[in-house]
């Protein structure tokens, strides 16, 4: 498949909005999803750290 020019490639034979609209939204989803998972993981670790801190505080208060 040889495109005559970059312009022709991006034009996609007149179907640019449909073809690029499909690929762009797909790429967006595939880029965003791992970021959301990373954020979820970070939130889980932060919640665990907070729980560990308050557990230590309770232990010290109980000992005191």
């Amino acid at each position, binding site marked *: 498949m040889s495109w005559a020019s970059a312009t022709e490639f991006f034009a996609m034979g007149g179907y640019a909005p449909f073809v690029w609209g*499909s690929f762009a*939204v*797909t790429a967006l989803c595939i880029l965003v999803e791992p970021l959301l998972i990373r954020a979820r*993981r970070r939130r889980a670790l932060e919640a665990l750290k907070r729980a560990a801190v308050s557990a230590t505080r309770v232990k010290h208060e109980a000992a005191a």
Partner: protein
Amino acid sequence: MSRPIVNWFRFSSPQAFYPLAGTLAPWFAAAAALLAATGLYIAFFVAPTDFQQGEAYRIIFVHVPASWMSMFIYVVMAGWAGLGLVLNSRLSGMMASALAPTGAMFAFLSLWTGALWGRPTWGTYWVWDARLTSELILLFLYLGFMALQAAIDDARRADKAGAVLALVGVVNIPIIYFSVQWWNTLHQGASVSLTRAPTMAAIMFTGMIVMVFAFWMYAIAVSLARVRAIILERERHAGWVLELAEGRA
């Protein structure tokens, strides 16, 4: 089953599976990236223009992979959910919960890319034919599964309720698959079959299959990463999780 080299059932413990998932996920991500690069190159620089549809047909390289994955992930999700129901295993339920958002995303992409393909080729973004309607129902099943689990506080009960929904919804998958055969649909019939050669040009078929595998590797990578987050959430009272969190302080 006398003394296997590896006791695979060891990995049904969240504590054992957590590091395994962490090791495997990057490999599947790398495979996905390589396959996607190859598939996209074929899609845009090797596969020729279609005689009937022009360049619009190139949407096939994301539409079919997304659709196939949306169906496949649902079956796998229902499988893990069913296994968790039968064996009462926590990790199976966690795996089902990890797969759902990715499956929902692919179901949405199937409908989105399909709508953008339908507009120039059929003249409409949407029609209530059997294939499109049953794929929309699949999206609702995914969202319903996620909402149901989110609504139930106790994780084990959420697993069980979600499993029942997932298993009942499995009937939708053969409906989607056979819809173009059983009913008179606007969506085209099957070009790809297990029993005969595909009715599309070989290079187009190849590009499409490469993209299917790219999406599959991506789905595995992302689900493994997500199940690790779910394990941290649900096993938060376990000693090893607290130690892990402290280690990251």
